[in-house]
């Protein structure tokens, strides 16, 4: 706990991403894009139609987040910006990673095996940030440099965030096919037997 925390700077190189260890704590610095359900749908639709995206996702940190933003004058400010449930993006993330090559996905709850596999193939990690801890997360957002696809609504737009000391983030799925969630699930399966016994279930 008293080690100096590791700082990751965006854009992320594949070498840095592949060097991250499962369970390690890191902090983010640089540009982070928010993107959840609608951004995934839209980005893949743009690709299909050959349309140019408003941001470059290569090597980026994509944050599964629909923040509360406040506009003062012409400037946006992040009020609360915790993660959303990543598993909602399970069906689109493998293709998103293949086509756009982000370096890190930041979210909560983890993602399914096809995403773990895509992360291994293309060099990407999943960084877990504590769900609901939205004020703490917003403190790591120093400024907001813009918003794209605002017509999708405040939670669903792409917010361009400039971060510093953004975290703590736990490397919960690495770029080598490992997942903390899979490890926990294996233990939960074992523990389930004790829980069933306690409840008098066969």
């Amino acid at each position, binding site marked *: 706990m008293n080690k100096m925390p590791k700082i990751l700077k965006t854009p992320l190189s594949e070498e840095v991403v592949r060097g991250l260890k499962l369970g390690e704590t890191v902090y983010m610095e640089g540009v982070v894009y928010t993107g959840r359900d609608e951004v995934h749908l839209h980005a893949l639709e743009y690709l299909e139609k050959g349309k140019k995206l408003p941001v470059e996702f290569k090597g980026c940190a994509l944050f599964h987040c629909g923040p*509360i933003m*406040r506009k003062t004058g012409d400037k946006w400010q992040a*009020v*609360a910006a915790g993660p959303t449930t990543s598993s909602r993006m399970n069906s689109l993330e493998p293709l998103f990673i293949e086509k756009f090559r982000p370096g890190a996905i930041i979210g909560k709850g983890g993602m399914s095996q096809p995403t773990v596999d895509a992360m291994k193939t293309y060099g990407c990690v999943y960084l877990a940030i504590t769900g609901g*801890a939205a004020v703490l997360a917003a403190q790591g957002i120093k400024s907001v440099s813009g918003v794209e696809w605002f017509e999708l609504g*405040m939670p669903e737009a792409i917010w361009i965030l400039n971060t510093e000391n953004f975290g703590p983030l736990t490397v919960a799925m690495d770029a080598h096919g490992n997942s903390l969630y899979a490890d926990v699930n294996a233990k939960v399966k074992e523990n*389930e037997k*004790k829980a069933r016994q306690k409840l008098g*279930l066969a």
Partner: protein
Amino acid sequence: MVTEEDIQNATVELLRKTVVKLPADVEEALRKAYASETDEVPRMQMKTIVDNIDMALKGNTPMCQDTGVTIFYASLPKDCKVDVEKGIVEGVRKATKEVPLRPNAVHPLTRKNPGDNVGERMPFINWKVHGKDYIEITVMTKGAGSENMSQLAMLTPTQGLKGIKEFILGAVLKAGSNPCPPTILGIGLGGSSDIAMKLAKEALLRPINQRHKDPEIAKLETDLLEAINMLGIGPMGLGGKTTCLGLNIEYAYCHTASLPVGLNVQCWAGRRGTVRIYPDGRTAYPTHER
């Protein structure tokens, strides 16, 4: 006399208090959970949660960006003349701008977002008439991550107690890391399909350190909670001791041929708030007095 504007102002203040500060029982359970975790990963998750509670309070900021959809429970005096519904609706609109709340309410098919958390049947208000002289409004700001894990089971009477336990355990396992554990579980037993779900949500309005007055129901609450906390899903599903902070059950008599069971899942941020508006316009916030 209480005016529509009084209701509106009280609603704004109620929503502000509710999204910024947790009720005492939930906060206490979270601090206990933090103290009980020993491994580094779950300890850090709980520390972040507890730190975030303090920061939200200090900055008068919503603790979570998902300020939910607004589910209200309004209890009115018998001779209530003021338009409480309009006061609540306008209060939600104003709070969305002023607190601020995230504009979450969208059309279910077109997904069009009006931007003010007001739309067809939203905010949703459950009505009751009570024998008191004050208007009481309770709100739950219910986030989607946990709500999406809620379930209904239409069990058969022969499945009985075992069936109930199987269903709840299965639902918790299926939800896993998704609902922002450590969770609070509300369970509705009996009634009919809709009543079981309604009771499941209402169960979340009771403080989690109060057991049901019926000892048999209270025992089921304790047994299920203990078993769920043996699973090791842990804070944020990253492993650890605390998977569930509290579990409340409410019941209603049901048809002899059926056994409906509703489960409403609440994330660690168990936000609920109550305001009482007295005939002279005075207000009190019993959930947020400390």
